[in-house]
């Protein structure tokens, strides 16, 4: 009888332990992968876009603060990529096309940042932007030449880039929206084009109303 009781107590303790373990391990049953946890955390922390120097496809060199006062929609890519980046940029193009013209360039700028500065020189980026009808002005493609600055940015925004042996990279992808003060405000699923478009438009509309 006593044994039965201690067994029951032990079962309850073990289950309680398991519940706590899973609760803590998944941020309260919210995030079962590091990627979800990362996005949840980014949206909570809202990091500031670090001070980096960009070089775009038109060989212009400027700091990120050049975009101050405008929202910036960002993706991280490399041009030799044969799978995810193409889809990512195709989807970015659709978001770009779905946003009313009056906002484009005025209130929001699109920016694709390459994390492969060695191969993605301005000429390569210039060629790449044509595939997606990017005008190179309101949707720019740029690289960050300084590896330290680049790594710092990737780290702040939780972009994980793993080189493989064939000159390719495995990397996570998303749409990042930075507000006019350079603060990261949204990380959006790049496969949900409509949801991302609606979100961006609603943010731009509230901004306009103010």
């Amino acid at each position, binding site marked *: 009888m006593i*044994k039965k009781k*201690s*067994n029951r*107590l*032990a*079962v309850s*303790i*073990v*289950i309680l*332990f*398991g519940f706590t*373990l*899973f609760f803590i*391990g*998944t941020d309260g049953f919210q*995030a*079962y*992968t*590091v*990627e*979800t*946890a*990362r996005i949840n955390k980014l949206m909570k922390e809202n990091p500031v876009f670090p001070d980096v120097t960009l070089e775009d496809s038109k060989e212009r060199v400027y700091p990120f603060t050049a975009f101050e006062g405008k929202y910036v929609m960002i993706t991280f890519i490399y041009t030799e990529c044969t799978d995810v980046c193409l889809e990512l940029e195709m989807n970015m193009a659709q978001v770009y096309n779905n946003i009313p013209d009056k906002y484009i360039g005025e209130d929001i700028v699109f920016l694709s940042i390459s994390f492969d500065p060695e191969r993605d020189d301005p000429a390569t980026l210039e060629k790449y932007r044509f595939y997606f009808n990017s005008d190179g002005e309101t949707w720019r493609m740029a690289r960050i030449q300084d590896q330290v600055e680049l790594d710092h940015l990737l780290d702040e925004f939780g972009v*994980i880039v*793993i080189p*493989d042996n064939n000159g390719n990279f*495995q990397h*996570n992808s998303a749409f990042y929206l930075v507000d006019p003060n350079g603060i990261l405000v949204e990380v959006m699923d790049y496969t949900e084009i409509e949801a991302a478009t609606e979100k961006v438009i609603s943010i731009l509309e509230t901004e306009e109303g103010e």
Partner: protein
Amino acid sequence: MKQAAYGLVLYIFLMLPPVTALAESIMAIHMHMQMPLFVIAGMLMTPFFQKKFPNLFSKWNSNGIPGIILFMIIVLYWMLPRTMDEALTIPAVEIFKFVSLPFLAGVPLRDSWKKLETRVKNIIYISLSAIFGFMAWLYIASPNQLCNNYLIVEQKTLGWGFVFLAACIFIYFIQTLFIDETEYE
């Protein structure tokens, strides 16, 4: 007690930095080799703990149920994509892996198994193969990269490892239904 010594040697060997680095560099080896080996190290060390703390096991795990539930919880926990990733990036999680797999999964499994009724053992066989089957489907079918530290190709390899495990456990379970082991002892 010789077993416990072997278990300790295996345990220490698995924690050597070059060994962990190698084992964790490949996803399938991380989950299907390193983690089970930690559980095995714990199982080997069980007699030592049973002798040292006889009351703990006989009082709190007399029918084997608490132990086997603890085992299942720990195994499930380490199958989450997130914990695998975090073991690589957060030292505390890595240490928890080194502690939980041998002592909270291996030890209770060995202590519980003999005490369990056949009915419960059957439930464990079936749920383990079902869980492994689900994990196989998850890791093979997922179009997304589940672990940021591992490539999608590795993820699929891991998934096929789960298919193999699920099948093995299920086949073993089926044979227990038809073959009476006591006849051969």
